[in-house]
């Protein structure tokens, strides 16, 4: 059988993030408004493959997905072996700004999920002028933790297995088995301690409750979409956050959980397309 190819192009970029050299894996497809997608903690950019492959999106958007350092096909920086990886608000924010600068993107849209959804709130608060619009998937300024992250990286528990098992229940039971297991596969592939290090941002360093009041959606529109089956970032967490941000648009997505773009791409499409249409129209 002759191979068929997807329109996605993947390349390795050499750039500096917070002043440190990195080799970053970036995929993109389409042309038009830049749409930078941020994957969840402990996973990688493969989560957005259906967005990258959607001609209705790539007709108007240049979709750009990068694997964060330590994730997917992006390597950790030189010297990583002597460090403990902990993602912070400052270096995650700078990472996104640096990637946008390095790719010379003019006022891109950023769509982040989970930790990425948290990060877009910080971008909205601190750098609204840099973005055309921001989309937070499974996004809240803060949410209650529900397990001790020490379980994620210890020698008597398989890290990949426990990471996947913890997040497996955050997907909707209606999501197709094929997509749910693909989503879990990325968790099984993560490097040791990386999911835990990402959650440092979520649990320890990234409480944005004090900061979100300064978000001005007139300067940069903010869309927040959360799946009804997400018990980690619950619909109530998102609504509580949005209640403090005048003009934030909230959508609670039926039959979706914490990984809408990868656990059920067809269902997610029903919710994200109207948002992308609005952004395109400048509404």
């Amino acid at each position, binding site marked *: 059988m002759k191979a068929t190819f997807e329109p996605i192009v993947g390349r390795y970029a050499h750039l500096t993030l917070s002043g440190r050299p990195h080799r970053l894996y970036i995929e993109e497809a389409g042309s038009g408004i830049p749409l930078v997608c941020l994957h969840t903690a402990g996973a990688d950019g493969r989560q957005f493959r259906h967005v990258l492959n959607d001609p209705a999106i790539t007709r108007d958007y240049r979709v750009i997905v990068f694997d964060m350092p330590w994730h997917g096909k992006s390597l950790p920086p030189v010297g990583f072996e002597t460090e403990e990886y902990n993602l912070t608000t400052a270096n995650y924010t700078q990472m996104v700004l640096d990637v946008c600068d390095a790719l010379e993107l003019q006022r891109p849209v950023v769509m982040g999920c989970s930790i990425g959804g948290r990060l877009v709130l910080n971008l909205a608060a601190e750098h609204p002028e840099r973005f055309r619009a921001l989309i937070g998937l499974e996004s809240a300024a803060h949410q*209650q933790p*529900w*397990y001790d992250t020490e*379980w994620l990286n210890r020698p*008597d*528990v*398989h890290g990949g*297995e*426990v990471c*996947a*098992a*913890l997040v*497996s*229940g*955050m997907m*909707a*039971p*209606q999501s197709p088995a094929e997509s749910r297991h693909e989503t879990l596969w990325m968790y099984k592939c993560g490097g040791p301690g990386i999911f835990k290090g990402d959650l440092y941002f979520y649990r320890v360093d990234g409480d944005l409750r004090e900061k979100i009041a300064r978000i001005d959606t007139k300067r940069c529109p903010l869309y927040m979409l959360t799946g*009804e*089956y997400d*018990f980690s970032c*619950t619909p109530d967490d998102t609504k509580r956050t949005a209640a403090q941000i005048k003009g934030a648009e909230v959508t609670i997505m039926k039959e979706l959980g914490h990984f809408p773009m990868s656990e059920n791409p067809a269902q997610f499409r029903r919710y994200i397309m109207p948002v992308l249409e609005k952004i395109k129209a400048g509404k």
Partner: protein
Amino acid sequence: MTTLTTLDATAGRVIALFERLPALVGGNADLLRRGRFLTTDFAIVVGATPLLVRVDGGRVTSITRGPFLLRPWAFSITAEPETWLKLLKRVPDPGTHDLMALSKVGLARIEGNLQPFMANLQVIKDIVTAPRALT
């Protein structure tokens, strides 16, 4: 008294579902394959009634209904009968669809030696929810 009777009926229904675990798990080749490293005794506690679940190489070899006198187990999972029924719905509702979701909001308690629980988390969640096939 009406309430008490209702609770008893619900508990009885849940216990009957869990007592089918040996056959349900034994008939699931994929779960047996994934669970082959798990040998433990744990308790599923339905309201006040503990069920001792004995697992040997992923196979549920027995379910014993309590109360017990000083019977040991590695870890226990405790919830009210109504909560168990919600978890065991074939297509559960948001918020009661996962053991960890129940634990987060205090509807379930997971206690004891949690190393075997966490090291085999997906298999244990799949064993516990195997009765969904019957609801």
